[in-house]
């Protein structure tokens, strides 16, 4: 079976028309670093493919501390255009140099587990994504977007066009733990955004990669920490709750059992690191 058509629309209107016409018989490729290996390997045989690289969606806009990243912004683009350390950390740990030159922010949202090393940071920041189809435009939270294993809350005729991040308050930490030297698949990636008031945790968002079918928030662990000081006992209970609540993928790099152990260990480390950091007002 061969690919019948490869479309390269230059305007969003054209792209959304194609999506509306062909719906699920049209595959989308952004940077291609997930889609192309599958095609090369013969794992997928799309009839029609639409490449969205020419849509001018590789922008970064900032206003009042809020940032909007276009869906086709590459990870290298993030490093070139954004100076925020947490986002840079996440981009830096997503693939090697050539992959970062190709792979995009939008594509990372769709990566199968344990990939999603940029998306996990977006989740910790409570990002929203812009979804468009021919007759409608909407924003949904990234948590809503992750509807379940192998499914997202967008329809076949919809495109993700941007990711919006609220101003970053409080402290952040990002850790990607791999078995060998990077670039390598994550065993677990931990992304935390935490706000304190006089040492007491007011809000915390813990997002983990390698702990479920997509990057996931660890609400139980968050609940344990909120209202508490970041002390040994609370940290250990939160890390334990995250390990128990996780449903880690299993692959050649790590078993689910090992990932669970590492979730506990690395989340605990990340929280200790935040405890030792001066609280940012």
């Amino acid at each position, binding site marked *: 079976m*061969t*690919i*019948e*058509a*490869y479309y*390269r629309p230059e305007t969003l209107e054209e792209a959304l028309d194609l999506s509306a016409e062909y719906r699920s018989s049209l595959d989308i*490729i952004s940077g*291609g*670093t997930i889609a*192309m*290996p599958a*095609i*090369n*390997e013969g794992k997928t045989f799309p009839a029609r*493919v639409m*490449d969205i*690289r020419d849509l001018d969606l590789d922008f970064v806009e900032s206003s009042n501390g809020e940032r909007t990243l276009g869906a086709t912004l590459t990870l*290298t683009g993030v490093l070139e255009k954004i100076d925020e350390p947490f986002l840079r950390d996440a981009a830096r740990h997503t*693939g*090697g*140099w*050539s*992959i970062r*030159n*190709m792979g995009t922010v939008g594509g990372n949202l769709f990566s199968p587990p344990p990939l999603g090393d940029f998306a996990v940071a977006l989740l910790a920041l409570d990002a929203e994504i812009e979804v468009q189809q021919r007759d409608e435009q909407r924003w949904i939270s990234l948590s809503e977007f992750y509807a379940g294993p192998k499914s997202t809350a967008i329809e076949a005729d919809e495109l993700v066009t941007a990711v919006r991040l609220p101003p970053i308050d409080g402290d952040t930490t990002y850790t990607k733990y791999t078995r060998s*030297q*990077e*670039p390598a698949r994550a065993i677990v990636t931990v992304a935390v955004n935490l706000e304190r008031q006089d040492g007491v945790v007011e809000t915390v968002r813990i997002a983990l990669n390698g702990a479920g079918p997509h990057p996931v928030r660890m609400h139980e662990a968050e609940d344990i920490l909120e209202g508490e000081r970041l002390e040994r006992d609370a940290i250990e209970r939160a890390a334990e709750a995250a390990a128990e609540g996780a449903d880690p993928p299993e692959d050649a790099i790590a078993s689910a059992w090992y990932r669970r152990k590492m979730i506990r260990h690395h989340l605990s480390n990340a929280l200790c690191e935040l405890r030792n950091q001066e609280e940012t007002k």
Partner: protein
Amino acid sequence: MSGKIVELTVNGRTVEEIVDPMEPLQSVLRNKLGNMATKTGCKQGGCGSCTVLVDGEPIVSCLLPAEAAVGTEITTLEGITPDDGLAPVQEAFRDHFAMQCGYCTPGMIMTAEALLERNPDPSRAEIEDAISGNVCRCTGYDPIVDAIEAASESMNGQGDDGA
């Protein structure tokens, strides 16, 4: 099969070629245009042996549809090799025994070229980081890092002590 004629600029020369929908640039460069330095490797973006530069940026050409490279400047190893000898990075690879089977070498050299273009005096850690997406199963990497370090020195006019 619905092949399409596209115009590609490879090593400064514009050529026309018939490509299939989504045919990877790697396959066009190697199998159709005869740029044999662009190796056929894992086809998964994981080994780096098909690394070429697109507008100066290293990319894995197995993951880029050739059509998406229309309008860009593509550079392969052939494009950096002078007619009458070797480029400094190539010489350094030879002098430092930075290859055994040689399969990864063109991709390694293209990544090294891109690195030295951006950072003429990289540290060993920066070199290791840059080539971390290029896999070598023979050398253990040290000779490759030595070679890139030496190339940077010779290109900066500091000479190579050959050590």
